[in-house]
């Protein structure tokens, strides 16, 4: 489903070049739950951003469903993000003066979806994360765990095929982190592919595969294709 071939990413300033990704080769199959682990500054988030097309890459190729996205226009990449990819951020990234309904509806708005269909999907997503009764609340009225569940609802409302989660439990206490992980597992069980950046070894172990990044490269332990092994 996702195929990265020799992906490189360099951050340049006037004084310094930082090689964030150094020839990443990675294949992720449909329905996998992949945990991206590694020390701080190793390139995990950069890799996730490249996968989510929030960040461009300097070398290599990125294929999605067998099609290279290299050279795609802003509009094509926007459509890709809107229709196939859901994002969950560590800091939730909810708009504080919008209701939960409006926050979750946001990506659907840009898909040109009819109002009735948007309403149905938002309510369905809220139902899934257990916040259906609070659709008119604002994010500031919710706990951190609840806010992250709203962010998950926003990510899944568009029924994406891939969910990219950047330390989704990083700002949560252990109880709420467990609830969020259970929710992600539930979503994965329904067939959605998930790539999750995490520092937490326990959470990483709950994924179907762990990929470790060190200094912008996949470590040896990660260089296997689960289907090939099977």
């Amino acid at each position, binding site marked *: 489903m996702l195929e990265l071939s020799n992906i490189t990413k360099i951050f340049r300033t006037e004084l310094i070049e930082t090689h964030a990704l150094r020839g990443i080769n990675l294949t992720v199959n449909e329905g996998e739950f992949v945990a991206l682990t590694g020390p701080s500054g190793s390139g995990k988030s*950069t890799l996730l951003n490249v996968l989510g097309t*929030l*960040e461009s890459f300097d070398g290599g190729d990125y294929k999605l469903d067998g099609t290279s996205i290299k050279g795609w226009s802003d509009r094509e990449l*926007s*459509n890709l993000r809107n229709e196939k990819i859901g994002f969950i951020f560590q800091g939730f990234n909810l708009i504080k003066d919008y209701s939960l309904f409006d926050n979750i509806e946001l990506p659907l708005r*840009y898909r040109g979806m009819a109002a009735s269909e948007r309403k149905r999907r938002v309510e369905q997503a809220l139902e899934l994360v257990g916040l259906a009764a609070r659709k008119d609340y604002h994010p500031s009225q919710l706990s951190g765990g609840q806010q992250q569940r709203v962010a998950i609802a926003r990510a899944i409302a568009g029924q994406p095929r891939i969910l990219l989660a950047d330390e989704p439990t990083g700002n949560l206490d252990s109880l709420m982190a467990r609830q969020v992980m259970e929710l992600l597992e539930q979503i994965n069980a329904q067939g959605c592919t998930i790539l999750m950046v995490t520092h937490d070894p326990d959470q990483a172990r709950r994924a179907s595969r762990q990929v470790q990044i060190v200094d912008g490269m996949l470590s040896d332990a990660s260089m296997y294709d689960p289907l090939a092994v099977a």
Partner: protein
Amino acid sequence: MEQFLYYLKVSSISIKRAPLPYFLTILIMSVGLGVFFANATFYYWLKHDPLPGKSAQLFHPRMNSNPNLCSTSCEAPRVLSYRDIKALTSTDIASASAAMYSAEGYAKVKEQQPATRANIRVTQRDFFSMFDVPVLKGAVWPDNETRMEVIISKAFAQKMFGSDDVVGQSLILDDRFFKVVAVLDDWGMFPRLYEPAHGGYLEPDADLYLPLETAYDLNYASNRQSQSFEDADFQKLATDGRTKAIHQLLLWVYLPTAEQQQQYRDFMNNLVQSEKAAGRHPNANGNLLHPMNGIMQAYDAESQEVKAFALVTALFLLVCLFNASHLSLNRYIANQYEISLRRALGASRWQLQGQMLADVLVTAGLALLLAVLIALAGIALMNHLLPDNSRMASWDGTLIGGLVGLTLLSAYLVTLYPALRASFGALNQQLK
């Protein structure tokens, strides 16, 4: 439409988030636009064509018929003598022509009444057709002969008689009885370019119109511009006015085709040659034929104050827009996180332009309201400072459309750069 309403809602939420910087932006824009509107109003009327489609075919001839040899200023006088008029209208090249000047008198309806001051336009029959003057009742003079008949404006008829249905009634003008033969309807020619000198184009239309020959017979002198190039008595227009170099008449001729215009120029040149041959035109040929749509420039009659203000207010508007754009940039940078989030969730830059257009409309709407108020105050102030220009203070559809367009353009310019800059920010930096 539903998406656009959503964009408007997002705009209003964004305003509520930081109302003070937003309204400061609006205020700065409005001050610039308001001051510009006020001046643009005057400038527009100064440049307004009162007879579109015809003003390029109406011409004002000038001839250097000064009987004395000029030494310093050899430009043709702006006013002509009665003799010049007779000579210049002795041809049938022009489709219409009318000589004229401005005078004044005192009118009343009954002998026992106190007289009312009346602005008089002394002119000829074709004046009314050349300048598209609407006749409400009656008919204009059939020729240019002497007749004790006047044509009056609707307002003057109401003022003197209390009615505009007064054709056939008598009016006493300077103790002489005249018959009212026509009443003119409200007439909106502005500026009155047939009277370009000394601010005459800004003044209201005459109350009363008197035939030229009658005015000369009755010794009505011009109250505006007149020159005499020989020993002559202005009080004896019936005699000296017709035979000597007393210059007080403006002539307008209607030359609708290029061929007629060329023929008339040739006619004027031939006229000078024959005058020279008769020993009456000692100066060089100084003939001029000004079209009405260039008369203000030819007379250098445009208000220099208004032109200077136009330049200053245009620069002031630019400074205001620059400052408003800077404030707007701060607001968009503050909202960059949300813009990046929208892009991350699938909004293309094109879709964000839709949001920007909604911002532009909201900004333009608010700025327009405030700018109009400031403009009205500015116009009132300019009327106070320059009372001669007070007739140039109204707004018509073209002007209002232009002002709305300028506001939209300004709002777009103020919003464009900040919005583009915010939408091109690095997504990953904003969404950590």
